[in-house]
């Protein structure tokens, strides 16, 4: 018994630094927000930076960082952080409004390449049923099925409804777990980045000497298709692909 108590004490003590880290992040967030209110945008960004690096984030943090960048006229970074905020909270009206305002200043107006219907369906599904929730429900069903199977095997529990319930749990569990893991392996939303440079040439090859494919501008959201050393192959909304230096992009 003494062993179990010792383990519990150790586990509880491990949580103390995490709580301290939370408190420091919240304190810096408040200070950064105060700087933002005072119009000290650079100071605000300097205070927000360790919060972001602490491993904790919130849509409010990303929104305020995006706002500071917008005030400093860094449109690419502003759109990048607003997109991050939207990923954490899709329904936030402030984020939606401000993102629309920022994107109106974006120069590029590309047509959007139609997506396959299943991609839309997958994105809708992911937005509706988050992967974590789906996996937890699925694993719960899987555990229920396991318990039922063990009960049948060990205690010989039988019955028609019992059998149906066991089968239903198995099917639901497998479907949800498959959905969650497959969407994790092949994300519905591909890796996206934002162009941070005012003007950026997409090139045919990963070289500054390669021919230019198209010129894009700051704030354009691109999908990352492949990576090489210091270069990334990106696809713009109309389907055109080209290589750009990694430093010219900011991941979302």
């Amino acid at each position, binding site marked *: 018994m003494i062993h179990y108590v010792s383990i519990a004490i150790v586990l509880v003590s491990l949580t103390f630094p995490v709580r301290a880290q939370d408190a420091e992040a919240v304190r810096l967030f408040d200070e950064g927000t105060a700087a933002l209110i005072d119009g000290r945008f650079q100071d605000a960004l300097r205070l927000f930076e360790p919060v972001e690096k602490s491993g904790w984030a919130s*849509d409010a943090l990303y929104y305020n960082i995006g706002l500071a960048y917008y005030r400093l006229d860094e*449109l690419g970074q502003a759109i990048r952080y607003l997109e991050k905020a939207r990923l*954490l909270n899709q329904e936030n009206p402030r984020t939606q409004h401000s993102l629309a305002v920022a994107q109106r200043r974006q120069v590029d107006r590309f047509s959007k390449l139609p997506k396959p219907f299943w991609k839309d369906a997958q994105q809708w599904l992911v937005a509706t049923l988050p992967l974590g929730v789906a996996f937890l429900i699925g694993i719960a069903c899987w555990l229920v099925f396991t318990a039922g199977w*063990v009960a049948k095997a060990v205690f010989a529990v039988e019955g028609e409804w019992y059998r149906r319930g066991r089968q239903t749990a198995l099917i639901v569990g497998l479907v949800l777990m498959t959905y969650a893991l497959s969407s994790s392996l092949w994300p519905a939303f591909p890796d996206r980045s934002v162009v941070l440079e005012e003007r950026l040439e997409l090139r045919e090859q990963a070289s500054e000497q390669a021919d230019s494919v198209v010129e894009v501008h700051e704030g354009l959201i691109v999908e990352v298709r492949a990576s090489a050393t210091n270069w990334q192959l990106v696809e713009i909304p109309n389907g055109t692909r080209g290589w750009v230096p990694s430093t010219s992009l900011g991941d979302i």
Partner: protein
Amino acid sequence: MKEIAGHIMGKRAIAGTLVFVFVALTGASSALARQVDVQASVDATTIGTEESVTLTITIDGSDGSDVQVPQPPEAVGLALLQTIPRTQQSVSIIGGQMSRSFGYSWTYRPTGQGTARIEASTVRVKDREYHTQAIQVQVVPQDQRPARARRTDPFAGAFRSPFDPPATEPAPEPDESDLFIRAVPSKRPAWQNEQVVIEYRLFFREGIQLRQSRLTDSWDAEGFWREELDVETRPIPRIVVENGLRYNTIVLKRAAVFPTRAGDLSVDPLKIESEAMLPFGSRDPFRSLFAMQTRFTPVQLESPEVTIATRPLPEGAPFSFNGAVGSYAMTARPDRTSLEVGESMQLSVTVNGRGNLATMEAPILDIPGAFDVYDPDVSTLLDRAGSQLKGSKTFRYILIPRTNGTFEIPPITFSWFDPGTGRYRTSLTDPIPVSVTGTATSPLSVTATTNGMPVDDFAPLFTAAEAWTPTDRLPLHARWWVWSLILLPLAVMGGVRVWRRHQNRLVRDPRWARGRRAHPLSRKHLKQAMELLESGDTQGYFEEVERAVLGFIGNRLDIAEKGLTRPQLDGLLAERGIHESLRNRLKALLDLCDRGRFAPASFSPENKESAFDDASALIPDLDEQLDA
């Protein structure tokens, strides 16, 4: 009267604007030259065999006092009529400055048809020599010459009554060498949108009078942006020598044109209608006076068409280039740099220089998003007085900050193509820091959307963050506990299945079950034996050791071991392949146990424990050989 009375009225217009030109010229003209300039000219480059030609050497900038009388130039095909030159002098006061000119004239008569030539002459003014150019004169048969050129008898009028009607003479008509318009572009070829000034100059021989002049057609220049430049409304003719002939020239029109596309672009000819009176014919001033109304002849003049080859602008234009070509400078000036939220500031960006300011677009501004920026108020100031169009264009922006803070208006960029160097140039202003104080009020209804968000600006910031989430999460498929949760039930089910099969075999196969139980039972008996030994029960100890060994054999062979004699047991073990030595070890152990049960006092503690050790070693050896 030797002074020129010229009167030109010009009115700027693109189409159908009247140009009134009235020029009265007699004798020598004024000269604007302030430095000494020596020119030789003739009164006609084509004469008949019965006509004469007068050569005049004009010395501008001199009253003749410091001029050595030049020798009459040698001539080929012409004979000099007098060696002493006629002299003439003129004084002009223009703009408060006086200028003088002095002239020497000789008259030559042709000696035959063909090309005659008056050689160059040398004139010495003060200590410097000036050289004129040779002049060629075509001598044609007299019948090919118009009547006006017929040489008159200077003495005929002397014997005629002044009251006699004047003799009828045909009205002389000017030819192309007497009166013409020349179009002079400032440069050819030109770059696209480069300023090219086309100057239309009227050339007319001395003595010609013009009146009631007007444009006959609208002057057009398709493919060009056009801007009229100012010309003198009362021009004073300037004397020039063209092909040996002295002309008066005035500027009729000056236009700056900007090619809007590349290629060969043409400018229409400038056409005017006028009435001209030539000085030729009668030398009688009274007759000339009376014949004034009838001797003006309608003339139509037309400049040649001007074609300008236009080159496209070269590649490599900077991103801020928006088509400006010329020579420019840019300035940016804010009316204030410290203000409160909601107040306005004016930023004036002025571009001045030479070029097409009318179509110039605003320089690129990158105003911080915290400012409301309204369309600029544009004012253009053009200076048309010079030889090129120049001026300035000012863009006035109104900026209203919507939030507080210290901002910086980045450098304003303006690029243009400089045709002089053939390169693009870019002008950058200094960044403009702007300090905005105060706090933003809640958006007014007119500047807010239906959901309360400000129009065209970010929503307010978040003052608190409630939902914190870790950002270093691995993807679902990369977390170990995910796969553990999936595989653990499988492991449980597998374990249950194995346990279930084990249980079933224990039930269905008693022999297998006894064999599975042999080891545990023997270990149990040996443990009890050791406890008995420690408690001092030697007899019980040996009984348990024997029970452990025989019980193991009985379970492994699935036999009732208690009813067997020692030979039977040995026989069974031999049948199951147990080696004789092992059987002997078993026999020795059983004998030892018998002695221990019946004569426990004869054993030392070491002998007792050796029985335990023998049993512990014997059981695994038996198990091994039974499995073999």
